[in-house]
């Protein structure tokens, strides 16, 4: 009951951020549709190398739904330290600790809310991406983008851990939490470029069957999610410790 109500609070307070993310996602989607329309019917056809431009535009547009997912991811992982600092500033932190709620429930509700948002964002991506592929007629799937996002989340979660330990002010935490975003701006395209050849021009169904049935790929995915789960748990334990000790 306690956890449920606290999760409700976190989701209610995330409402505005979720709407902003959805707004950005819709804009990305519309932008991608406009790009595709321009490729097919616009002035691109008049250029010297229309196929090349179309190829680039297709790649860009195929990457955009994944951007939606990554926005949720960034928002989600970034939310926990920010929420704890915001709660500290508004006094909720102190109030909740003066009540019968345990620190692990208070922090647990934040992580549960984030996991719900992740699940929602993943579901949304699996709905939006195929719809987009159907609309665009593209047979490419940018799995590299997804892998880059997961890599980034790992990196970001790992990076955020020390924030709990030493960033005494929200401003300091906010400043350092922007560093991985800038790092991501370099990591994602690099990862995409390094892996691009493996997936380009492959049939979507083929990619899914071949890669998902490939034991190595599955093993790598499991290890990746395993590390992510361990880091999230460590992050959760550190957060509980932070709430209990730092007050």
């Amino acid at each position: 009951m306690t956890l449920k109500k606290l999760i409700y609070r976190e989701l209610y307070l995330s409402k505005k951020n979720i709407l902003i993310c959805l707004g950005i996602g819709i804009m990305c989607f519309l932008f991608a549709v406009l790009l595709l329309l321009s490729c097919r019917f616009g002035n691109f056809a008049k250029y010297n190398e229309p196929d090349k431009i179309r190829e680039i535009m297709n790649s860009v547009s195929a990457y955009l739904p994944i951007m939606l997912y990554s926005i949720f991811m960034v928002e989600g992982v970034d939310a926990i330290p920010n929420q704890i600092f915001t709660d500290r500033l508004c006094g909720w932190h102190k109030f909740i600790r003066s009540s019968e709620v345990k620190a692990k429930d208070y922090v647990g509700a934040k992580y549960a809310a984030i996991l719900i948002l992740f699940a929602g964002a993943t579901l949304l991506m699996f709905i939006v991406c195929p719809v987009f592929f159907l609309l665009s007629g593209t047979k490419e799937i940018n799995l590299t983008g997804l892998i880059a996002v997961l890599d980034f989340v790992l990196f970001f979660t790992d990076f955020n851990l020390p924030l709990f330990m030493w960033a005494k002010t929200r401003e300091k935490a906010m400043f350092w939490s922007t560093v991985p975003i800038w790092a991501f701006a370099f990591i994602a395209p690099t990862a995409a470029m390094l892996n691009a050849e493996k997936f380009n021009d492959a049939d979507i169904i083929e990619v899914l069957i071949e890669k998902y049935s490939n034991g190595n790929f599955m093993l790598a995915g499991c290890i990746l999610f395993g590390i992510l789960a361990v880091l999230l748990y460590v992050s959760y334990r550190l957060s509980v410790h932070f709430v209990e000790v730092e007050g």
Partner: protein
Amino acid sequence: MEYENAIEIKNLTKRYDGFTLDDISFNVPKGSIMGFIGQNGAGKTTTINCLLNLIKRDGGEVRLCGMDMPEKEIEIKKYISAVFDEMPFNEELNAVILDKILAGVFSQWDHKVFTEYLDRLQLPSKKKFKDFSKGMKMKLQIAAALSHHARILIMDEATTGLDPVVRNEILDIFLEYLQDEENAILMSSHITSDLEKVADRVSFIDKGKLLLTGVKDEILDAHGIMRVGKKELADIDREDYISARVTDFGADLMVADRAKAARKYPAALIDKTTLEEIMLFYVNRNKTFDA
């Protein structure tokens, strides 16, 4: 639950770099309001934080509702309400949403009581808290604090910054809350006039040390302001007064035993005093200060 004192603090000690809460001891009996006074930085909030186990103490014992803190922390906190100087609820929320959230925070949350308080205190249920005035925010905190059948209400500077009308309204609610003699209030404030109005007992803390604790009326009866001329000041024994305030016409001396001072200095005029003056003279103890 059988206990006499709602709050028992014994030899409470907490050390910080540059500040020590030093050996604080006082009790708050059931059915009473304890005014906890002292200037800013005196140690009131540190004491309350230790009481609520928000910070770890370095020594001493704390018992609430007869139970040891922190041994029975979760059990104790079912019977405690804390009200702080700043509203702890996110400003994007409204009272309807808060009602749902607090139902998960407090096991004995009473939706009906909360709604009644909202009506009584004329608090809009669907307006976001960011549009509330300071007085409304405080009233909301009080409404939330009293809606889960807490036995002890702990207030940390909760009436500071409020206008007299709202303060009076809140003080009336406290007196009503104490109609149930199982309840008790610890109210920290530096607005001594509020405490003079409602408190049964007073504890006075300064620079981390407890200087006075006891029944308010007894403290007020015992203390007095002895008014003397500048020439007579030299004739008063130093140990007979707490401190002296020099005015244009003479000096005001705070005496801790009015009856004894009257016997020793029959010619001197000794007036009754207030908590504010007691606080002022004790803060300036062992010295002479200007009016």
